[in-house]
């Protein structure tokens, strides 16, 4: 009962290096496409409809009304609380991710408007250590919701995360609890929360804030699930269903409200938010 034909996950090209050429070659259809055209088209190939990876900046651009974005308050960064070192030091990974993405951590939060409706929005960025949620991501999500409460705006979270930030240990697990206690305040304040799940929404993020939207929308091509495919395959030692943990799997199993095409996300969000204007 999938809405779309079954498939493995859409390719996500997260390591797109910045370069100065005006054209790019679509890896799906092979067409040479004009880069600005791609970006204006929500990073969807104008020729074949393939989704290219969208950075958090690009995502904001494609959702919010032009010029409406205004980042929230302080820039936060991890202080490497465990002085964690695995095959390399955590602080090096962070510095590299910061340099590569121009972000402080795996999320951008700010105020903006969608078709004129004021919102507070958070967009996670998979390029930054797999979009993982550590202290900074957790804190920024909370501050975003608090800002929504203060300004009486709806809150939108676009998730793209592999789960908790392992390098911050138990602190990162507890961000699940932290985001949820604040999410509860948002609910008590009577403000709507629309959760948008994209590729991928998994682990501790899926098992906390992302699943608690008043409305939960999945972008076409999303991956949605708690445990990783490999962990499950090791545990049960069997093939996984073809569309396992895709957005159509999630819809079929009652986990999400709707699937939207990326091109329609902006109007979808405007429509959804419209119901809550002036709600109790």
């Amino acid at each position, binding site marked *: 009962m999938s809405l779309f034909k079954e498939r493995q996950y859409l390719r996500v090209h997260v390591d797109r290096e910045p370069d100065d050429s005006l054209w790019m070659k679509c890896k799906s259809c092979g067409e040479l496409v004009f880069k600005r055209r791609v970006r204006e088209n929500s990073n969807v190939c104008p020729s074949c409809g393939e989704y290219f990876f969208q950075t958090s900046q690009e995502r904001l651009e494609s959702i919010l009304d032009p010029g409406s974005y205004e980042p929230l308050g302080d820039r936060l960064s991890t202080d490497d609380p465990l002085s964690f070192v695995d095959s390399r030091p955590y602080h090096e990974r962070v510095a590299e991710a910061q340099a590569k993405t121009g972000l402080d951590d795996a999320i951008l939060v700010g105020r903006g408007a969608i078709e004129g409706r004021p919102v507070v929005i958070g967009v996670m960025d998979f390029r930054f250590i797999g979009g993982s949620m550590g202290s900074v991501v957790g804190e920024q999500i909370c501050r975003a919701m608090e800002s929504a409460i203060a300004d009486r705006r709806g809150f939108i979270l676009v998730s793209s995360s592999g789960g908790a930030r392992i390098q911050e240990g*138990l602190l990162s697990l507890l961000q699940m609890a932290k985001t949820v206690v604040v999410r509860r305040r948002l609910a008590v304040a009577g403000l709507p929360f629309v959760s948008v799940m994209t590729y991928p929404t998994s682990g501790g993020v899926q098992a906390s804030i992302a699943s608690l939207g008043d409305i939960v929308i999945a972008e076409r091509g999303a991956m949605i699930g708690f445990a990783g495919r490999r962990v499950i395959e090791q545990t*049960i030692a069997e093939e996984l269903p073809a569309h396992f943990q895709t957005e159509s799997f999630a819809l079929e199993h009652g986990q999400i409200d709707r699937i939207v095409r990326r091109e329609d996300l902006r109007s979808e969000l405007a429509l959804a938010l419209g119901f809550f204007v002036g709600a109790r």
Partner: protein
Amino acid sequence: MTEERTLDFLEAKIEELRQLNASGGIDLSKEIERLEEKLSALRQDLYSNLTDWERVRIARHPKRPYALDYIASVFSDFYELRGDRIIGDDRALLTGLARLEGRPVALLVQQKGRTTEENKERFFGMTRPQGYRKARRTMELAERFGFPVISLIDTSGAYPGVESEELNIGGAIAENLQTMAGLRVPTVAVVIGEGGSGGALAIGLADRVLMLENAIYSVITPEGAAAILWKDKEKAREAATALQMTAPTLLERGLIDGVVAEPLGGAHKNPATTSAALKEALVRHLHELEAMPLDRLLAARYARYRGVGRYVTRAPDQP
């Protein structure tokens, strides 16, 4: 811990000598006394400076007391409540009512199996969506009647499987967190063995979080971290240290509220004293929580979780 076996062997020998002594042939009292002193010193030496990995092994020790053992020793009148009213009844997470020093409480406990049979039934102690939803149902029952909620956490993690995903295990965990965030009764969670990630936190968002001295509580298993970060499963030992998952460290970090002492060598060396220490801690913390007016209790819970995290503020012009 091969030294552990040496000590156990020595202990057995002393016992044999003691029996020989009791049988009356020769007097070995002095020698036995000296051996015992030696044993005690060796034990102290071995166990008082446990490495993180040694604690991991104790936390997973097959003889370690499990939740039902504490239910039998710490509580009375356990009255199990089964079923999520939707799909099934998870046997890795049990819920029910019981009495703690005569006072009714609601229990949410994760139970591992000891035999192969039991492990099959209990999915090796890994909770499924049915278990989390049952827990939520029991929390709501507790709230309706004003029963404090006590969680005993002991799982390597939520059960990873196709059925778990089909039944929205992530959503079930998230909803438990949301429910616990607002529960209008005092809540205490104790990690008694393994506190495995979201699978543990799903019953762990409590007013007080305690750990047994040799329990572990972590965002991921050492083995999982080794595989993902070190790309080498043999590095679990290093991962265990790097992840800072032991009770003393987490207490020092301010992430938990108390450590319940275990006997030297671990809870299984003397379950009775461990139970007594656990009971004392539960009674004390519940007593403190019940003295708080409800609005203050909820405000404190909120502040506790809102405040968790470590970060620095960057200058606006920093690259």
